[in-house]
């Protein structure tokens, strides 16, 4: 306390709460900037606390403890009953929150699904249009009523002619024939796919109509076989697994 001796007595009074008025204000102002006096005040409060131990007298009556413990039990019950109230408040709050979140979730899902449905509807419409166009093409190609004209050089006699359109990746084949000679009884024409390697592959049988026209549409073929050429032979009516010579028509890919 050197240098602060003028506050020494007042510090003891302040510790006891016995300092008032201007002296207290002056000391409190001094304490704001004086760590050593604050420490001394803390020690003096400890000294003052010891005075409580000097108090003597009878022990508190049993009723005081009973009263205290009764109040403690009452507050404990109050704490316990606060929880349900709290929960009763929380449950609907959480339920409402969950409902809002679920509604938002389903709304987003619904919105997303609606968009997807719209996309699918658009795709479906496009596919239907494409399919309708394809049907028209096929119907035109396969119609018995279609007027089929094969243009050849002037004054040349009409020649049997076949046109094979093959897409290897899809194993899709369309074959159109015209001016085909009439077949002998119980015979049929058979179309053959000649692969780059390996034996000829049956590509459908056909009989021309009265005008010599015929079509083979999407016959069953193994997948992805590269075609070197197509050929036609005359086979028994049920068709053959291997071509019967001679080859009446053939053509290589362009």
């Amino acid at each position, binding site marked *: 306390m050197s240098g602060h001796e003028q506050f020494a*007595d007042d510090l003891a*009074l302040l*510790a006891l709460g016995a300092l008032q008025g201007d002296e207290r204000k002056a000391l409190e102002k001094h304490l704001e900037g004086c760590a050593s006096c604050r420490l001394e005040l803390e020690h003096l409060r400890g000294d003052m606390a*010891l005075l409580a131990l000097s108090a*003597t*007298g009878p022990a508190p009556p049993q009723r005081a403890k009973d009263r*205290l413990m009764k109040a403690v039990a009452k507050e404990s019950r109050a704490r316990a009953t606060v929880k349900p109230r709290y929960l009763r408040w929380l449950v609907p709050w959480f339920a409402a929150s969950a409902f809002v979140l679920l509604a938002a979730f389903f709304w987003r899902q619904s919105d997303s699904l609606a968009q997807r449905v719209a996309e699918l509807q658009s795709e479906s419409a496009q596919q239907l249009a494409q399919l309708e166009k394809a049907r028209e093409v096929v119907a035109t190609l396969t119609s018995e009523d279609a007027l089929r004209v094969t243009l050849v050089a002037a004054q040349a006699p009409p020649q049997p002619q076949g046109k094979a359109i093959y897409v290897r990746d899809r194993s899709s084949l369309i074959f159109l024939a015209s001016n085909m000679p009439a077949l002998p009884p119980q015979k049929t024409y058979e179309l053959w796919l000649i692969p780059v390697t390996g034996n000829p592959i049956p590509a459908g049988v056909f009989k021309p109509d009265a005008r010599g026209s015929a079509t083979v549409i999407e016959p069953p073929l193994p997948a992805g076989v590269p075609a070197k050429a197509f050929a036609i032979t005359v086979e028994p009516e049920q068709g053959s697994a291997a071509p019967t010579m001679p080859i009446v028509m053939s053509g290589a890919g362009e």
Partner: protein
Amino acid sequence: MGLGQSARGLVFVLLKGRDNRLSGADLKAGATDVSLLGAMKSGDQSAMALLYDRYSSIVYAVALRVLSDTGAAEDVLQEVFMQLWRNPGVYDSSRGNLGAWLGVIARNRAIDNLRKRRPETDIADVVVSVEPDMAGEAERGRAMEKVRVVLASMPTAQRSALEMAYFEGLTHTEIAAKTGEPLGTIKTRIRAGLQALRKAFAS
């Protein structure tokens, strides 16, 4: 804190349950103040009862000395321990010895009641630098006896000034007026009295 209390605290920590509630009367009797306060945080009423048994005599004696009225002293006793029950976390070991801390709070509340004024000091602001271990009955008895011896050895005027300030809540001006002594003398006596107490417990 003495070794005995530390050892009791260790045993308690090893054996207590998952929450802070205590189990076993023997363990409770040996639990440290801090352990009992921890149990109170979990709503352990038996921990509250143990702390009451440990310190109610100090609190009640201080309140009765100040108020000279058993009913009023019981009210202070109730108020102090209910505050502790409601907020056991307000005390930690940095605030000093729990018994001394409760004694200061009881004294402040009793003085407030005596002067019919609103509480001037929040219990959260009370810090006392007192080291004597008072968790055990024997330790409490030794500490109380030492204080009484120191006070008994003081000059009567000095002890009287100290007690008027502490137990009657009088200001130095009021003490001076009551005793007819100069203000400076009252100040010096009070300071010297507190220093005598410090010296006794420092040795």
